[in-house]
């Protein structure tokens, strides 16, 4: 058994999709090896996947983003996204996208060790779903992933993975659960489940459909489900979850119920989803610390009072955010003056940390504004410094002379008359000392911070603009994907219709022939039935028939005799004729045999 690492991405990688990589397991890749698929975000777009099935392996399979960035600089790992919306974003990490219908993107039905970490999954097709994972090794895990299902008829996934931590599931399904599990001890921690569909059926975030094992869901968010998780056949343990149902309807212990999703998440809508907890909501500090995951979906260490859901609202969140600011400052200022710059910036930043600690994300905006103000002040100071330096260097100018004259005027009462030269020397010395102090205290730092501030302001501005654009693109992409899916379905339906029509014509012709034949048979059957009825009636009147037969015979004899008589003797012809007519009438009324 060897450890094999292969790459997946769009530029110069081993495989262009996870579908192709998995298809090679058992062919080009040994199923006995421990295989890691390292994924790259080479162009900022999702990797199109088809339905793929992981074959039975005696080794293990790990799916995770590579460290660093792809070919065009997009980060491979969405967990490095920083303080932006927590949503599937192909520009910020690897996204596996599946447009198939009535199928799962990834199927696993063998007991190998499976690890899925730090990836984004997106399904767009009707009855499409990301996973049908029915069997895995007991140590298998899925964590730190964002999974989004955009079709309103998205289907339920089966996720029989025992450890599921820090995932975000967002679905627009009208009528299906997020996931089913069965016959496993499943533990789900700090996961954010959100459904935005119409809830036209009873839906749940998690539905355990069978088996006597325990399903444990802890510190998780359940918004948009009209029913609580279900643990059919086994034990259901719900602790410290948050829901928009009433706490009584949801059940469990420590449940925070009757929440309004838009009050709890930065954005609870599907298109602009942002799964981060609002600082003003009930989720921060509400999780059970003993059972919470050590880190959140972005890898941030959870604090002593952890947050319910995948993302941790850090009570020291401001400091963490400011660490990012400092890092940005460091990158901009450069190595030479970084130490002094950061020392000065650090002192200033620490002054903001208290505010940031209590106000979190909102405070970050405030902190940035404060930094901006601080930067402006420092910029002014720098300008003053420049002016003073100018004073020193252009002492012969009229401005300087006026300043010096003023200075001399203000000091002449005390020190008497000084020569201009001495005044100049003193001013020059003061300016020099002040300039040196400024240089030591933060001139370079100010330059760095101002530059950083400018860069940050530009980046924030672009981010705000890009956010709107991305939202629009996301909406348009979703619409296009649905249109493409619909077009495919229509084409398939058309082909099927043609086939059915053709087949239907053949079948109809056969059916018509059969009906015609059956009609003939039925017709004949009806005639036979009539005949049988007549026969039956005739049989019942056998004596009558026999009598009539005798009459006929008698009439025949009589007719013969009469014929002879008429021919040979004088017999009243009229009487004979009447008798024959009567006999003929009797015969005519007899049923035909």
């Amino acid at each position, binding site marked *: 058994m060897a450890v094999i690492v*292969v*790459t*997946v991405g*769009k*530029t*110069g*990688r*081993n*495989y*262009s*999709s996870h*579908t*192709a990589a998995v*298809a*090679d397991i*058992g*062919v*080009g890749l040994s199923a006995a090896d421990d295989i890691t698929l390292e994924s790259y975000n*080479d162009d900022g777009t999702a990797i*199109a*996947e*088809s*339905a*793929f*099935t992981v*074959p039975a392996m005696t080794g293990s399979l790990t799916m995770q983003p590579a460290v660093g960035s792809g070919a065009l600089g997009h980060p491979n790992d969405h967990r490095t996204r920083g303080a932006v919306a927590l949503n599937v974003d192909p520009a910020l990490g690897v996204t596996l996208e599946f*447009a*198939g219908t*009535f*199928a*799962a993107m990834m*199927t696993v*039905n063998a007991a190998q060790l499976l690890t899925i970490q730090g990836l984004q999954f997106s399904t767009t097709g009707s*009855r499409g*779903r990301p996973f*049908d994972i*029915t069997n895995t090794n007991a140590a298998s895990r899925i964590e730190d992933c964002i999974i989004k299902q955009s079709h309103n008829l998205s*289907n*339920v996934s*089966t996720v029989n993975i025992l450890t599921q931590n820090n995932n975000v599931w967002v679905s627009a399904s009208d009528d299906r659960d997020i996931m*089913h599990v*069965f*016959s496993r001890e499943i533990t789900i921690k700090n996961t954010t489940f959100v459904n935005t569909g119409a809830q036209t059926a009873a839906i749940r975030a998690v539905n355990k*459909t*069978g088996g006597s094992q325990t399903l444990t869901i802890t510190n998780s968010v359940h918004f948009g489900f009209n029913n609580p998780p279900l643990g059919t056949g086994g034990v259901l343990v719900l602790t410290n979850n948050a829901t928009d149902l009433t706490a009584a309807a949801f059940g469990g212990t420590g449940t925070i119920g009757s929440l309004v999703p838009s009050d709890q998440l930065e954005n609870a809508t599907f298109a602009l989803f942002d799964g981060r907890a609002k600082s003003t909501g009930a989720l921060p500090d509400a999780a059970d610390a003993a059972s919470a995951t050590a880190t959140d979906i972005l890898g941030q260490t959870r604090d002593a009072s952890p947050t319910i859901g995948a993302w941790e609202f850090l009570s020291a969140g401001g400091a963490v955010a400011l660490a990012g600011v400092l890092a940005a400052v460091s990158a901009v200022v450069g190595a030479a003056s970084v130490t002094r710059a950061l020392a000065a910036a650090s002192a200033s930043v620490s002054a903001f940390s208290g505010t940031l600690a209590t106000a979190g994300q909102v405070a970050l905006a405030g902190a940035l504004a404060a930094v901006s103000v601080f930067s402006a002040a420092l910029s002014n100071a720098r300008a003053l410094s420049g002016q003073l330096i100018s004073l020193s260097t252009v002492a012969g100018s009229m401005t300087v002379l006026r300043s010096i004259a003023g200075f001399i005027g203000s000091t002449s009462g005390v020190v008497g008359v000084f020569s201009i030269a001495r005044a100049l020397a003193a001013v020059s010395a003061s300016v020099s000392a002040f300039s040196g102090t400024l240089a030591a205290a933060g001139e370079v730092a100010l330059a760095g911070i101002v530059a950083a501030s400018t860069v940050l302001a530009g980046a924030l501005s672009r981010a705000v603009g890009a956010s709107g654009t991305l939202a629009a693109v996301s909406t348009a992409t979703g619409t296009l994907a649905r249109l*493409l899916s619909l*077009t*495919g379905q229509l*084409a*398939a339906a058309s*082909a099927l219709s*043609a*086939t059915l*029509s*053709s*087949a239907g*014509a053949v079948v109809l012709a056969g059916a018509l022939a059969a009906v015609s034949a059956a009609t003939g048979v039925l017709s004949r059957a009806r005639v036979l039935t009539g005949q049988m009825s007549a026969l039956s009636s005739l049989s019942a009147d056998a004596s009558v028939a026999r009598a009539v037969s005798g009459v006929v015979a008698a009439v025949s004899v009589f007719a013969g005799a009469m014929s002879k008589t008429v021919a040979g003797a004088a017999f009243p012809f009229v009487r004979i004729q009447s008798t024959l007519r009567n006999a003929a009438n009797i015969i005519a009324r007899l049923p035909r045999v």
Partner: protein
Amino acid sequence: MSEYLVAARSRGALPDFQAGDVIIGGPDGSGWGSRERKSAWIAAGRRAADWPAHTVIVRVPLHNWAKTLEYAGGSTIHTDNTDPEFPVILAFGRFNFALSELSGAEAAALDANGEIELTDDRADALLTDRRFGLRMSIIFAQPQG
């Protein structure tokens, strides 16, 4: 133009992956990986003689993208998992190119380059929809109306 990544070898007996199964599709010029396309393998600095030939690329210029998505619909056939405890999973391609029926010239080109270009009609003649067990040329030949 569409391109299909096609398995060149069977992974196991049916219902496992078979030679000719369509793994996935992509638009013209798709950035196939070094283990997927022979030219990418060589571009990565590997010897042509070492090309593992586990997959081939089939290019069909007249296949539009919707058709490609349909043909590349998956390497797995599922039933809808209304009963997820007992899903029906058939792990082989929904669509399969009959690589064994390539002409001598076509097969030679495939061996030499690891990829081949087919006309629309030729592709449909070689492509089987496993759901119906029919070649696409037969399916498309059904009378309309």
